[in-house]
């Protein structure tokens, strides 16, 4: 029998084959449609990828994409949803039970994720291994007493006290990342500063120091694959260079440091500008342990000599609101009635004379080499000169600047312009100002027993009204110290190519690369 294949039949057969094969090709199709990779500008290179000792959001954002937590934040929000956990249940105020999804595999053949990995990951914050430094983010897990393993995939978190912030600050965020116990034991904690063995949707496949960091989609990821097969991070410190890189399409997504930069890029074709409120905080701090700043009158005089509104106008084009306290509006514990310290040069001079510095004073202001901070420093320098304070500016690059709180450098710091990122729970904001952070992130070296006690109380109180009241009292204590001159909570501005839909958590610093999608 002869089989004749006509042209029509051939086309019909081809179409049928194509339709039949479509489901198998679907994931590849998604990648192809979205483009091969997204390039994101980060403002510095990575320094420490250990979740317990990370430096900031650069590392945090990499870990968020490459690791899994029991719970995570839904895209663009602080809503908590399950991640590696199949189920999570708060049994009582101090007990949380979890069950892991079976079959979650760590990168590079480090095996399946088990409850033992969860126990190791969380307990190491407060019990560092021999030879390890104390965890920078130990406060996130300060309420944890122990993790009990009840099965290969199940366990129980036992808390010392109720911890209302635990879900937001620890479990669902970077401190909740589940690391591979085997990888830490085999590779050592030193190596883990620059290596990620996670189980997240992306895998860090390449790090060229000061050049690029590559995150490639994890083929073994248990869950919906990311929309882009590759995210490349380019460390570009200089904001102007970042803008040029964005204009030349070398970078597809970047945070902007000023409203004027946003206005300039707004005119670029194919560009979207994203503007979000911020809960970050920028301030001028004074080291209360270093003479002459150990004299309250000198600190009060400096606060009275500065005109914060003029600093904001010059450094941020007047496009950001003035901060009056640590907590941004909208946060639990926001101090609505915080005092607004206005410039009063006569009162400042009188206080300086009373403190024995009527003939003048030499001080140093340490700051990061960003145009906004440098401008703020120059304005502060000119303002303080009016009351006889000769302010020397010490402008540092990111690598040097961020280690200034440690050791002898920290003891010798005088004034500094600082900027920290905020999180959804106020306990994250207050933790850096406790006595235990001196020598690490408490650059003002201000120590108040009352503040420390209240911080511990607020951490373990479930009643929101009591917590809010406690945080306001803590901010009053900070104000009385005069060691903090609050500048702004900033605004979050981003430039993004119009084909890209980034995923940004409400604080603006935390990005979810795994949820970046085609627009």
């Amino acid at each position: 029998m002869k089989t004749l294949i006509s042209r029509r039949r051939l086309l019909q057969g081809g179409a049928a084959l194509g339709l039949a094969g479509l489901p198998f090709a679907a994931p590849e199709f998604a990648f192809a449609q979205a483009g091969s990779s997204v390039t994101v500008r980060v403002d510095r290179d990575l320094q420490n990828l250990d979740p317990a000792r990370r430096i900031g959001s650069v590392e945090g954002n990499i870990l968020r994409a490459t690791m899994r937590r029991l719970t995570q934040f839904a895209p663009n929000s602080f809503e908590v949803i399950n991640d590696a956990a199949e189920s999570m249940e708060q049994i009582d105020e101090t007990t949380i039970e979890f069950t892991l999804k079976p079959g979650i595999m760590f990168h590079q053949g480090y095996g399946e994720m088990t409850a033992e990995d969860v126990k190791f990951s969380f307990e190491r914050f407060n019990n560092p291994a021999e030879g390890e430094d104390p965890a920078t983010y130990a406060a996130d897990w300060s309420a944890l007493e122990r993790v009990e393993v009840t099965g290969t995939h199940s366990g129980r978190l036992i808390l010392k006290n109720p911890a209302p912030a635990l879900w937001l600050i620890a479990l669902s965020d970077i401190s909740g990342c589940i690391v591979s116990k085997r990888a830490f034991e085999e590779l050592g904690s030193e190596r883990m500063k620059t290596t990620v063995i996670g189980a997240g949707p992306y895998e860090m496949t390449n790090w060229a120091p000061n050049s690029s960091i590559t995150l490639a989609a994890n083929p073994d990821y248990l869950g919906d694959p990311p929309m882009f097969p590759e995210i490349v991070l380019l460390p570009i410190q200089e904001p102007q260079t970042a803008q040029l890189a964005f204009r030349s399409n070398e970078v597809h997504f970047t945070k902007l440091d000023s409203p004027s930069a946003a206005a300039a890029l707004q005119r670029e074709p194919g560009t979207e500008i994203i503007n979000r409120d911020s809960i970050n905080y920028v301030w001028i701090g004074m080291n209360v342990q270093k003479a002459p700043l150990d004299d309250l009158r000198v600190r009060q005089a400096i606060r009275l000599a500065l005109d914060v509104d003029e600093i904001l106008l010059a450094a941020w084009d007047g496009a950001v609101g003035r901060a009056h306290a640590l907590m941004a509006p909208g946060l639990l514990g926001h101090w609505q009635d915080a005092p607004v310290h206005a410039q009063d040069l006569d009162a400042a001079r009188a206080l300086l004379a009373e403190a024995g510095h009527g003939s003048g004073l030499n001080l140093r202001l340490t700051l990061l080499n960003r145009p906004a901070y440098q401008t703020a420093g120059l304005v502060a320098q000119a303002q303080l000169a009016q009351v006889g304070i000769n302010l020397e500016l010490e402008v540092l690059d990111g690598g040097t600047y961020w280690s200034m709180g440690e050791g002898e450098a920290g003891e010798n710091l005088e004034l500094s312009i600082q900027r920290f990122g905020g999180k959804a729970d106020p306990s994250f904001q207050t933790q850096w100002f406790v006595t235990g952070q001196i020598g690490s992130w408490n650059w003002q070296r201000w120590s108040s027993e009352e503040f420390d006690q209240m911080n511990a109380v607020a951490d373990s109180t479930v009643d929101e009204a009591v917590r809010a009241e406690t945080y306001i009292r803590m901010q009053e204590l900070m104000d009385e110290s005069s060691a903090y001159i609050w500048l702004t909570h900033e605004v979050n501005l981003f430039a993004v190519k119009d084909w890209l839909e980034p995923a940004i958590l409400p604080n603006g610093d935390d990005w979810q690369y795994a949820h970046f999608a085609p627009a």
Partner: protein
Amino acid sequence: MTATLARIWGSGTGRLGLVLVVLVVLGALLAPLIAPHDPNQIAVMNRFSGPTLQNPLGTDQLGRDIFSRLLYGTRIALGVSILSILIAFVAGLLLGIAAAYLPPRLERVILIIFDIISSFPSLVLALAVVALLGPGLWKIILIVSVTLVPHFGRVARAQTLALKNSPFLEAERVLGASPARLVLVHIVPNVSGPLVVLASMDIPVVIAIEAGLSFLGVGVPPPSPSWGTLLNDGYAYLDQSIWMAVFAGLALTIATLGFTLFGEALRDAVDPKLRTEP
């Protein structure tokens, strides 16, 4: 001197160089008289202003007058250049003459030191030293001086070697002149001529190094109006105003071009091989 100046004036590029150098030097000397404002006086409400009668070259991100800052910046650029080159000139001259007269082993030690210093690019060495000791005007002057010493030292040594066995020095020696007299009265004046030409050629290089360090934020500390700092500010705020970058760049161009043309014309004027008139 007059003849040398006349020879410089006689060449087109030399004349342009001389005019530019005189302008820059006058700007530096007369800055307090010419500048319409205090270079560090901020006026935030008037920032990023374009050129106006009140601010001839506009204002910067803090409302400071760009013209006044450029004028005072001339003092920093020339001050750093002249002081650095003077120190390097004297040190290079002394070490070069010493190397020519000392025993071969000591001469070798001096030359090795010259080689070691020369092996570091001056900007990289300056960055390393500033990273260790922190920024500051005197530190920059010292760093630049050290990097220039071998430059002068080698020429001084070569000139001294060529001179020390010349017949007129031999005659002096036979007549009983002391070694100190030979060096001070004959060697130093004869060696200094070529070094002066070298010095004039080095001024633009030092201006560029100082501006480069200040541009990178490791040079003259703020609020001193270094041209490099002004350029950096101009770059950072290019979106808001082009005037800072344009005028700071122009000032740097005028100064380096002027000194380069002047240096080349001076070299040609004092080099007998290039002289055409009797």
